[in-house]
């Protein structure tokens, strides 16, 4: 061996393969760990989001129920009558109420439909409409 000759170490292919395998496994482990951590962070994030949405839904449901109660209170007959009287409305007098029977003209000339605007007409009282 002269001075120009350099020592060259032949790489062991098995050691190289082992090194790559360790590297890959390590990378996989780290990647997996990072993935788990990421998922965990995402899970926590989503949990917060879910919680916020749940709370929002609860608030909306609460509002709906409170509004339903308010509607029921506002629609109570005593209040409606009081407001109607304040507006100057009165119950119609007897002569102000007219009984009307409604007929739908049909090809046969007979009343095809028979419904009342003011009151339900008993059967058998349908008249042939003038046309």
């Amino acid at each position, binding site marked *: 061996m002269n001075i120009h000759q350099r020592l060259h170490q032949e790489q062991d292919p098995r050691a190289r393969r082992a090194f790559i395998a360790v590297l890959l496994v390590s990378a996989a482990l780290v990647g997996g760990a990072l993935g788990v951590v990421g998922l965990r962070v995402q899970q926590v994030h989503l949990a917060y989001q879910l919680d916020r949405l749940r709370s929002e839904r609860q608030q909306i449901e*609460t509002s709906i129920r409170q509004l339903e109660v308010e509607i029921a209170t506002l629609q109570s*007959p005593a209040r409606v009558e009081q407001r109607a009287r304040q507006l100057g409305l009165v*119950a119609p007098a007897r002569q102000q109420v007219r009984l009307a029977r409604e007929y*739908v003209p049909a090809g046969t000339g007979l009343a095809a439909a028979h419904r*009342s605007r003011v009151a*339900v007409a*008993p059967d058998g009282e349908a008249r042939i409409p*003038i046309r």
Partner: protein
Amino acid sequence: MSDLRPRVLVLAGILALAFTGVVGRLGWLQIVRHGDLAALAERQYSRTMVLQAQRGPIVDRSGAPLATSSPAESLFAQPRAVGDPVRVASRLAPLLGTPEIELHSLLTSSRPFVWIHRRLPPSTAAAVKALREPGLGFLPEPLRLYPNRELAAHVVGFEGVDGGLEGIERALEETLRGTPGKAVVGRDALGREVVTETVLQRPAPGQGVMLTIDRTIQYLAEREIDAAWRRTKAKAAMAVVLDPRNGDVLAMAVRPTFNPNAFLDVPSREHWRNRVVTDPFEPGSTFKVILAAAALEEGVVRPEDRIWAENGSITIAKITIHDWKKYGWLTFGEVLQNSSNVGSIKVGLALGRDRYYRYMTGFGFGALTGVGLAGESRGQLRDVSRWSALSLPTMSIGQEVSVTALQMVAAFGAIANGGTLMQPRLVRSVFDAQGKEIRRFEPKPVRQVVSPETARTLTRLMTQVVAAGTGHNAAIAGYDVAGKTGTAQKLDPATRRYSRNPGVLSFVGFAPAQEPRLAMLVMLDEPKNEKWGSEAAAPIFSAIGGGVLRYLDVPPSDATPLAIVAGPSETAAAPRVRSAPIEVAEPGSDGRVMPELRGQTLRHALATLAPLGVGIKVDGRGLVVAQAPAPGVALPAETGVRLTLASSASR
């Protein structure tokens, strides 16, 4: 080296021993004493709470809420976590309206958990949360609300801390209450509140109940009953409205009453009592209808049969019973029409005790109606074997027998329903939290008490009571009313004789007589300034009945219907709004004259034509665009008027 080895072994032994000790202790704490210590820890830092389920709503027959639950929050404290009880109490007191000293004692309690205020209004809860005081927390608890206040209070009842206490709230407690859930209340290692995350079991809401009550009819009944109760200063007043066709209770109005939102604000608990089902009373003359039904069905008497009314008094078993007026000969119809005691007693004696008793029980007296309300009375109807010599005559005029208002109106409903007694129905259906019907209660016929023929005859006689007899104040314009007045004295417990003071004044009837849509009882108990049922109770029947029939769209029997032809109008004429007042054409000497109606609304045109009394046919909708006959043409007697209407949209 040889010196070192025993030392290492000793050290290893000591370490092994220490480790074994630690493991042993761990095992002791974690396994053997786990239960005790876990319970102790939970007692110290957390507590399992019952989460109340949302109670099911109670609605009327059209779905309008009569009782509903609103989410509210209840404030609690964990005294050990409260920083400065004095400061917290002073900050909370003005918000809650609770004395500071009371709050301080709660906040310094030795218990790990104390309720500070249950079911706070949302605004107060928000104000307390804004204080951000450690040691305070909230749990959801539904608040029961009755949006119509006193309306139907006796039917709906109310809810106390332990569930329904009166009315439907009590009767259907199992259905309404739902299943409670569980939550753990506590704090984590950083002192943060953990409430929502530790709900172990969510509460299942209760089922809703739909009643047969109609909110509007109930209101009409309560409005009139309330006015009468105040005017007459009666001890109590009530009205019950029933649909005789199916037994549906449409209204049950009772005075005195209470507001179920503040049910403790009453002078006496008597106000809570639903007297319609709990308080039996001697019905008096209204019971003569039951006697008449039995006598007609058994053929003992016919409407035209003449009865000698003994000039106003009859003596039986040494007791003389009077009529309010001296009558001579009366037909059976007139006996009922004039409410003759003597005539009724004679019919009762002819009928006999066994047959009369059979019909009384047949009509449901002496038995529960099955309406399902707590505290219902059977009334008092003694067995025939326990009747005295005076029992049959006095029962013939509605004494010595006591009935509830519901029994009475159900019996009259049977006559209105062709003789078939229907079980009074108060609950129509049960529905789940999504509003889906899960159980329905169908109308239930109890029995055929009298034949349809007898029911029709009796209805005719009762119609005469209102048209020309003691019940004339119950008449409703445009409708035939069948009914009977009642004026009953009360037994004075001191003297054991009937008191002379006004007792029970009532009217029971149904309308329209030929095709009944409502059966109603009106009763005033001991009114101070009224003496007769015909004067006190009958006008209330008329006022409620008139409103109810109009509300139910029942056509008056004397109204000539107006024919309206629906559908698109064939006329091409454009409507022209006419705002000037329309003058009604005066009929000439030879008859009536057709007025100008073009441009008028239907309402305006009908008002113009009303005085002429002509038949009217209407075609189309909107304003009058054509009329026949033409304006100014004399109207022959038999000719009707035809109006053609059109709206701008239909052009």
